[in-house]
């Protein structure tokens, strides 16, 4: 497991290569990249600032990955989240999950993103033509995170 919070950009090919090294049992790699969009809720965004809670962010991300590792058969996982000032089209977050089989890789990758979106202490502030605004959390993200909890409960 590799969890990083950083201002620097990342490269998905390099991260996948690092994750795979020496493990030819990996048959499936699912990944996700989150990007800064130039529009949000109908307004143009010129700068996106990511604030975080140093210490807790790393801890929350490691906890989210541990939950995924307990739930699916994983052969490696990398999570990188950027902080600081970003521009439209910049990369924000990377999640890479390796497994022998694709269902595990896909499910764990989606689970990690859903939990990250609701449990990891990052906050986005957008600078738009009409001024600064903090991005509101979405009920759809809470619902997305909830379905994993409900799925687990249903299996017990």
């Amino acid at each position, binding site marked *: 497991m590799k969890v990083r919070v950083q201002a620097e950009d990342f490269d998905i090919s390099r991260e996948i290569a690092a994750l795979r090294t020496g493990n030819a049992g990996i048959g499936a790699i699912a990944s996700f990249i989150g990007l800064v969009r130039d529009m949000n809720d109908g307004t143009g965004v010129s700068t996106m600032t990511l604030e975080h809670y140093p210490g807790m962010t790393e801890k929350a991300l490691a906890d989210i990955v541990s939950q995924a590792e307990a739930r699916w058969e994983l052969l490696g996982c990398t999570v990188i*989240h950027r902080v600081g000032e970003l521009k439209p089209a910049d990369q924000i977050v990377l999640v890479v999950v390796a497994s022998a089989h694709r269902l595990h890789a896909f499910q764990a990758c989606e689970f990690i993103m859903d939990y990250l*979106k609701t449990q990891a202490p990052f906050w986005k502030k957008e600078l738009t033509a009409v001024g600064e605004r903090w991005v509101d959390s979405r009920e759809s993200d809470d619902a997305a995170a909830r379905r994993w909890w409900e799925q687990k409960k249903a299996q017990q």
Partner: protein
Amino acid sequence: MLKVLFFASLRERLGVGEESIPVPAMATVAGLLNILRQRGEDWADALAEGKRWRVAVNQDMAQADTALKAGDEVAIFPPVTGG
């Protein structure tokens, strides 16, 4: 003492990022929030029941009845919006 942190829109609205506060007599998250709400209208409103804020104690998500003791780090912040 407790180390109390505020983040994002709450930090901006309350004008404070970090402060030290004595452990309240009612030594729970709810007890601390009661004390903060007495600081004035802005605090009472920002931290009102039913408002969308979250609390972490020692960097783990916490509930109203989570116990507090001297040396704890308590963070109060709006719902997260990373990713």
